[in-house]
C-alpha cells in the first residue's frame, strides 16, 4: 500500500481519536467516584463484608439484598450499572445488635453490586456480587 499524504492524515486522525477515547474515564468511574466520596479516597480492602444477593434476578424492580459486616459503623451499597450508582447507606447506632441489614433494590440491568463497609478503626472493606437481571428496573 502506498502511503500518500491523504492516507497518512486519515490514519493520524483515527489514531488520535482512539487515544482520546482511551483517555476518557471508563464507564464504571461514576461508581468509583461514588465510592471515593464515601471512603474519602481511602484504600478499600477485601473481606470482612458479606453481600448476599441472588445470582439471577428476574425482575430488576425489586432485587432482595443483604449486607453484613461485623464491626462496621456504616455500610454503603452501590450498583455500578445504574444511572446513579449510589443505592443506600446504613449507619449502625449503639443499639444495633448486629451490622446486618436487608432491603430490596432496583437494578437497571445485569451488573455488579458493591457493598463498602466502614470499620471501627476507619478502614474500608468491600464485597461485590454480580447479579443477572432479566427485566431492568429503571422504567427504560
Amino acid at each position, binding site marked *: 500500500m502506498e502511503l500518500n499524504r491523504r492516507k497518512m492524515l486519515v490514519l493520524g486522525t483515527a489514531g488520535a481519536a482512539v487515544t482520546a477515547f482511551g483517555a476518557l474515564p471508563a464507564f464504571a468511574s461514576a461508581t468509583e467516584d461514588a465510592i471515593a466520596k464515601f471512603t474519602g479516597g481511602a484504600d478499600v480492602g477485601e473481606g470482612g463484608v458479606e453481600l448476599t444477593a441472588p445470582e439471577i434476578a428476574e425482575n430488576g424492580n425489586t432485587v432482595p439484598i443483604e449486607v453484613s459486616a461485623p464491626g462496621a459503623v456504616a455500610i454503603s451499597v452501590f450498583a455500578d450499572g445504574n444511572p446513579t450508582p449510589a443505592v443506600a447507606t446504613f449507619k449502625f447506632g449503639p443499639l444495633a445488635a*448486629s451490622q*446486618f*441489614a*436487608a432491603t430490596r433494590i432496583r437494578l437497571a440491568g445485569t451488573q455488579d453490586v458493591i457493598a463498602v463497609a466502614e470499620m471501627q478503626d476507619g478502614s474500608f472493606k468491600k464485597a461485590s456480587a454480580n447479579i443477572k437481571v432479566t427485566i431492568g428496573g429503571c422504567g427504560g
Partner: protein
Amino acid sequence: MAEGVKPRVKVPKTASAGETITIKTLISHQMESGQRKDDDGNTIPRSIINRFVVDFNGENVIDVKMEPAISTNPFFEFEATVPETGDFKFTWYDDDGSVYEETQTVTVG
C-alpha cells in the same frame, strides 16, 4: 405527591433484657426514581423517601440514607438490642418534606 403512605413494622411485643430482636419494616410509597418517563415523554420528577431512622428510647439503632435505587414500598430488615422496656420509634423522611412516624412498644418481662 405521595398519597396512601402507610408504614408497617413488625416488632415482637415482649423480649428479655439484652435480647437481640429482628425488626422488619415496610412503608407503602411509590418511590418515583426520577428516571421514568410518562406517555408524553416527559420525565416524571423524583419523589422518594430519602432517609429512614430507628431509635429506641432516644438511642439510635439504624440510620439509612436512601437513593432512588431503593425499590417501591421500601422494605428493611435489621437487628436491634433491647436493654429495657421502651419504645421503638421509626421515622421516614420524604423528599416532599413529609415525615411519617410509627411507634412500637417492647416490654421486657
